[in-house]
């Protein structure tokens, strides 16, 4: 049981950070399909910088910096160049996946992996099975609470939500929806950078090309599954992590009898099911939310 909690927290935390980035963007009216790209950029930058400088702190800072820059780029493309946000987000994902692949090959040759000298500090053996939990996992509930509080209990959050749901209403009270989207995307960049760093420096301390393996998209699905609510998205991400853990367990228990490809597919199947269920529950609310932008 302890293993389960620890494993789900460790697998879920990177996704939760990235999902919170998605929640902020979604509230401001951007369906951010660039989350996958941000996540891999964060994972790559943190590992490479940690390896080059020997400092995990600089690695985290670098991951955040890169993701904030990329988010600012996404904002420019959407708001100033008037690109379709979905396409622009997918472009960002392509840029992240391709850019990190290319960068690693250029710097480290064809190995496709970087080993960091250390990971994010953990609790340590004194805490038994919980000892492997690192600072970002422990900070995660505080972070989720912070996002929830900002969205649901502050006037800033109301204006952020209004900017996404009814941009004209936001403009009518003097808020600038474009500016709110910039704030949401930049804050999201910080969170996605941390989420990516947790993925590479939160255990194995290795970055390998393509290691996000769709987790950014799963974070995006968690936003939809959780109806844009920070706590809902968190539980959705934990659910996806649980399915992944159960798949691995099944492999350990049944060995050869559990078809490996099917087990690896489980989290993605859960994601598709999650989206389907939330679409059934909310009867097309997703589509109307997308069409709502600037309507």
């Amino acid at each position, binding site marked *: 049981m302890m293993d389960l909690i620890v494993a789900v927290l460790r697998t879920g935390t990177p996704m939760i950070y990235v999902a919170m980035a998605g929640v902020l963007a979604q509230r401001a009216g951007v369906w951010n399909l660039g989350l996958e790209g941000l996540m891999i950029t964060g994972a790559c930058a943190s590992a490479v910088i940690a390896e080059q400088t020997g400092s995990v702190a600089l690695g985290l800072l670098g991951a955040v910096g890169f993701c904030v820059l990329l988010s600012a780029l996404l904002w420019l493309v959407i708001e100033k160049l008037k690109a379709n946000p979905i396409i622009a987000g997918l472009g960002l994902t392509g840029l992240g996946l391709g850019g990190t692949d290319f960068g690693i090959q250029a710097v480290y040759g064809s190995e496709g992996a970087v080993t960091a000298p250390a990971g994010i500090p953990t609790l340590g053996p004194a805490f038994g099975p919980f000892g492997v939990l690192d600072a970002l996992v422990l900070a995660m509930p505080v972070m989720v609470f912070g996002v929830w509080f900002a969205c649901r*209990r*502050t*006037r*800033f959050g*109301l*204006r952020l*939500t*209004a900017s996404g*749901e*009814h941009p*004209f*209403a*936001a*403009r*009518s*009270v*003097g808020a600038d929806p474009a500016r709110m989207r910039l704030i949401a995307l930049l804050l999201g960049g910080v969170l996605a950078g941390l989420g990516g760093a947790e993925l590479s420096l939160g255990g194995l301390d290795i970055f390998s090309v393509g290691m996000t393996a769709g987790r950014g998209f799963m974070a995006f699905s968690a936003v939809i599954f959780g109806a844009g609510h920070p706590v809902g998205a968190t539980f959705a991400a934990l659910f996806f992590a649980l399915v992944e853990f159960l798949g691995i367990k099944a492999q350990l228990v049944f060995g050869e009898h559990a078809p490996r490809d099917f087990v690896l597919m489980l989290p993605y199947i859960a994601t598709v099911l999650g989206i389907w269920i939330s679409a059934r529950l909310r*009867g*097309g609310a997703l589509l*109307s939310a997308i069409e709502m932008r600037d309507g």
Partner: protein
Amino acid sequence: MSAALACDGLTIRFGAFTALSAVSLSFAPRQIHAVCGQNGAGKTTFARACAGLLAPSAGTIQIGGNPLRGGHVKDARAAGVELVHQSFALPPSFTIAEAMEFGLTGKRGAVFTRRGLQARWRGHLEALGVDAKPSTRIRDLPVETQQAVEIARALAGDARVLILDEPTAVLAPAAAEALFERLKRLRDSGVTVLIILHKIREVLAVADTVSVLRGGKLVAGPDDAASLTAARIATAIIGHSPAPAGDSAETAEDIGALVGTDLPHGHRHTLTGPRSVAALTGVTTRPGADGQSLQNITLTVGAGEILGIAGVEGNGQRPLVEALAGLVPLTEGSVTLDGATVTDLPLAERRKRGLRIIPFERNTEGLSLSSPLWENFAARSLLAKSALSLIDPAALRRAAHKAFQSWDVRFTSVDNPARSLSGGNAQKVILSREMDAEAKLIILAQPTRGLDLGATAFVWQAMRETRDRGLGLILISSDLDELFDISDRLIVLQGGRIAGQFAPPYDLGRVGSAMVGEH
């Protein structure tokens, strides 16, 4: 005493189009000022410019003697100007308390608890007569309450100039009167009210001064309302725009209905045949995404009859169209069309039997804006054929060209996209497609909304001619003047039920109380 709000040479252009042209006006404080004009006269543009939502291309706006930086909502609000939009600007997922809060400025109270937020606004809402819990979501409120919330939001700060853009368009007559009383109390407490209206009757009921816009220019005012007559305002509003064609008795009433001077009472019309072209029997539907449904609706439409459907918006008008069109499953009841039961037939089959629809939203449901005009026209005949049948684009183009000419559509080429047309011409394209020779029942949902006087009169004339050819028409409108003027019979929908049936001469009081559910 300096004016509460004044503008000088105010000009607003959108690209090559001039929406407002050199408007100079000055509104005295503590009065109710009406600004009227027909659709497209620039009223909404004027209101939005005064609220800082639009930056003037030329000219200035002054609030209480201080110049307003154009296009800065924050500045306008800081100066005490608040705008209540025609279609309200409140996020539907917000609770009333959140909707009150999100527009507030200032540092105090930027962070809150849910209960604290509701407590903060309860008193304010009660004082303004908003009859709903602060925890109710905007999307669950009837339109009158949404409007009351929006007005309460506008008054949450220190509003000195309140601008209302066509506030009566969504209200039942009694609610409009209550609104006018509320505005008079606000005026007496020191607020300057600017109210955009297009019905002269309402202007005379509430305004201290009247200004008239026509084609983006100020043609009269602000004049003292006491010195004006309905006829003089009507002349200023209409100007030399195309008068309704047709025989003169109807024309006189049409003009009255168009500018809202006297409410028409309607005329009895003899049916051309005793037969019914469509009937609903005990029709009930499940609530849709917008919460609307039909409850046990039974009605018939006769051949050669215009059946008017009145009601406050959101009381079952949309499900009624969907039920007739076969777009929602019925939980109970049956639908007949031209004598045959069509309850289980899809829309395509119903169209083959003569059902035609002029939908609510002409730009999204009625036309494909990015498609050429001829394709929009050809949709009717193409959809009636099988998917594998061959088409002859040249013939379709010719047919569209011919139909558009006979319907007086102003277009340059049938290959132009539908978005190139003005509202009136776009509606004529839909009419030309839907009012064809094989039509038996035509549903017209808000067919004149947003059209100018000339185009509105054209649509009415087309409806009368179609009726006289022996078709059945269902006219759904939120404009009682329109309904009273051309309906041969009137049904009021309220909460998805039939709340009353009326025959001419119509009585505003009785129709109005049916609309709000008083019997």
